C-alpha cells in the first residue's frame, strides 16, 4: 500500500508540475501580454515597470526558473488582474469548484446507482421509463442543462439564476451566508449532476445485468437466496468494478463540465478564473489555476483508484504488488 501511495504521489507531483509549467509557458508565448490591461494611455515607463514586476522582461526560461524556485515555497506570484497573491485567489476558487463537483458527484451517485440497480435487474414499464429518461439526460451535456436551468430560474424566479451569493450577504453572519450559498447551489449542481447520474445509471444497469448472468448469481438463486438479496449482496458488489473505474475518469469530466456550468451560472470557481486569466494573459494566475486544477485531478483519480481497490480485491493485490 505504501509503494502504491508513493507512486500516486509522484504522479500527482509530475502532473501538477507539467500542467502548470506548460500553461505558464503557453501564456508567456501568447501574443500580447498583461500590459494591455493598463489601457491605451499608459506611459512607456509604466509598461516597463509592469513588465519587470511580472518578470516579463526576462527570457521565458529565466522566468520559468524564477517561478519554479518560488513555487516550491508555495509562492505562486501575484495576479495582475486582482493585484493579489495568486495563492489565495486560486485556493478560494478551487474550494468553490471542489464543493460544486463533490456535491454534484454525490447527488449523481445517490440517484444514478440505485436506479441502475433497479433497471439492471428487472423489466417492466417503470424500468423502461427510467431507461428512457437516462438516454434523454445523456444527450443533455452540462452546457445545455445549465442554460436550460438558468432559463427556468429566470422565468419562474424560484431560484437565483446565477452566482454563489447574493449581494450584501458577506456582511452578515456566517449562518446567513451558508443559507444563501445553499440557495444558490442547486442550480449549478443539478446542471452538472444530471448527465453524470444518467451515465452512472446506464453503467450500473449494464454491469448489474452482466453480474446477474454470471454463474455465481445463478447458483445463489438456485440455492434459494431471495432475489432481493442476490441483487443487493451478491451481484451488486461484483457489478461495482466498472463503476469504480469510471469514478477515476469522472473527475476529468467533472472539471470539464464544471467549467461550462461555472461560466453559465456565474459560479466563482476555477474555470472562470482560468478563463479570465487566460484572456488577460495574467501568466502567474494562469499557472496557479493550472497547478490547482492538476492537484484536483490527481486527488480525484487517487480517490477513484482507492475506490476501485476497495471494490475489487484482485485490483488491490495487483496495486500493492506493483
Amino acid at each position, binding site marked *: 500500500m505504501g509503494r502504491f501511495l508513493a507512486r500516486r504521489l509522484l504522479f500527482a507531483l509530475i*502532473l501538477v508540475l*507539467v*500542467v502548470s509549467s506548460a*500553461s505558464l509557458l*503557453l*501564456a508567456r*508565448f*501568447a*501574443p*500580447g501580454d498583461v500590459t494591455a490591461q493598463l489601457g491605451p494611455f499608459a506611459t512607456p515607463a509604466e509598461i516597463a515597470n509592469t513588465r519587470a514586476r511580472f518578470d516579463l522582461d526576462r527570457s521565458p526560461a529565466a522566468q520559468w526558473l524564477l517561478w519554479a524556485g518560488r513555487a516550491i515555497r508555495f509562492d505562486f506570484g501575484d495576479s495582475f488582474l486582482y493585484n493579489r497573491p495568486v495563492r489565495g485567489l486560486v485556493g478560494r476558487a478551487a474550494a468553490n469548484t471542489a464543493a460544486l463537483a463533490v456535491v454534484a458527484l454525490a447527488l449523481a451517485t445517490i440517484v444514478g446507482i440505485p436506479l441502475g440497480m433497479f*433497471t*439492471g*435487474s*428487472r*423489466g417492466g414499464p417503470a*424500468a423502461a421509463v427510467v*431507461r428512457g429518461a437516462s*438516454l*434523454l439526460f*445523456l*444527450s*443533455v*451535456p452540462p*452546457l*445545455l442543462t445549465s*442554460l*436550460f436551468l*438558468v*432559463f427556468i430560474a*429566470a*422565468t419562474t424566479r424560484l431560484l437565483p*439564476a*446565477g452566482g454563489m451569493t447574493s449581494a450584501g450577504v458577506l456582511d452578515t453572519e456566517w449562518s446567513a451566508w451558508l443559507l444563501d450559498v445553499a440557495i444558490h447551489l442547486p442550480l449549478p449542481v443539478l446542471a452538472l449532476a444530471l448527465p453524470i447520474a444518467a451515465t452512472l445509471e*446506464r453503467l450500473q*444497469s449494464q454491469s448489474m*445485468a452482466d453480474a*446477474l448472468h454470471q454463474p455465481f448469481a445463478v447458483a445463489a*438463486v438456485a440455492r434459494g437466496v431471495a*432475489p432481493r438479496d*442476490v*441483487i443487493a449482496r451478491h451481484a451488486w458488489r461484483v457489478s461495482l468494478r466498472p463503476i469504480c473505474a469510471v469514478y477515476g*475518469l469522472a473527475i*476529468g*469530466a467533472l*472539471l*470539464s463540465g464544471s*467549467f*461550462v456550468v461555472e*461560466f*453559465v451560472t456565474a459560479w466563482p470557481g476555477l*474555470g472562470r478564473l*482560468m*478563463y479570465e486569466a*487566460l*484572456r488577460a494573459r495574467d501568466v502567474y494566475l*494562469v499557472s496557479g489555476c*493550472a497547478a490547482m*486544477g492538476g492537484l484536483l*485531478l490527481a486527488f480525484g*483519480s487517487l480517490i477513484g483508484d482507492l475506490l476501485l481497490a476497495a471494490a475489487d480485491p484482485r485490483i488491490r493485490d495487483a496495486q500493492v504488488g506493483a
Partner: protein
Amino acid sequence: MKRAGRILLAAIVSVAAAAPWLAPNPPDRVFEDLLYAPPTRLRFLAPEGFGAAGLYIYPQRLVSRLERRFDDDRDRPARLQWFTDGRLVTVPGAQGGPLLLLGADRFGRDTFSRLLYGARASLGLAAVSTLLALAIGALVGGVAGYAGGIVDDLLARFTDFVLVLPAIYVALALRSVMPLVLAPATVFALLGAIFALLGWPIVARGVRAIIASERERDYASAIHALGAAPSRILLRHLLPAAAGYLGVQATLLLPAFVLAEATLSYVGLGFPDSVPTWGTMLQDASNVSLLAEAPWTLAPAAAIFMVVLAVNLAVQGTGRAPVQLEP
C-alpha cells in the same frame, strides 16, 4: 430506436446541406427594427378582399424599442410565398416580410435561418475534426501496435496522461494563446487542429490494442511470409480489423466536438459573431435578464440536443433485455 436515431441524424445532415434553400432569409441580413422580435405567428386565413385562403403572416411593427414591444400590422396581411427566389418559403420585405419562424437575435437577424446555416459550420467542423482525429489515431495506434517496444510504451504513457486532462481546459488554453481575433477560415482550421489533437490519443489507444492482437494471428504471419512490406501489412491487412472500433469512436467524438465548438464560441473564444454557428448563436442566451423574454435564443441548444440524442439513439438503441429474477 436505432432506426429513429439514424433517421434523425440523416434529417439533420440534409437540413444542413439544404440550408440556403430552406432558410427564409439570408443569415446575415439585419432587420434594424426587429431586434429580439418574437417569432412570426403563422395564420391560416383569408382576409377580406385579399384573395384565397392560405398561410399568411401579419408584419411585425416596432412599438417600443426600449421595451422591445412589437405588434402585428393587421391591415397588411402578407401571404407566404413558396418556391420563390430559390427559397422554399419566404416573405419578401417589400410585401410585409420578413418571416421570422424563430424570432430575431440581438442584431435583428433571423434565428431560424442562422440555425440552419449554423448547422453547416458546427457539424462541418465536428465532422472534419473527427475524421482528422480518427486518421491520426489509427496511424499512430497502428504503428505502435505493429512495432511494439519503446514506441508502444511511450504512446501508452502519453495517452494515459492526455486521458486524465479535462479536455475543455486544454482546448481553452490552446485557443486563447492564439490571437483572439482571427478570420473565420483560420478559426475553422485552428479549432479543427485543436480538436483533432485532443481526440486522437483515445483512438490510438484502442487501435493499438486491436493491431497488437491481430498481428499475432495466422493471416498476418502468412502475409509477412509472403514478403509484403510492413506498411502494406499494416494499412491493407491489419487496420481494416479496427474499422468497427473507429466507427464507435466517431460516434463518441462527433457530439463531443459539436459541444466543444459551442462551448468555445459561447465564451467568446471560437468563431467571430459574424459567422453563424450554434456556439456564437448561444451567446445571445448568456443574457439572463433577456432569456425569459426571448426563449428562442435557446434554439441552438435544442439543435445540439437533437444531434447528441440522434447519435446516442443510433448507438445505444441496442438495449439488452434485463434479467428476470422474479418468476
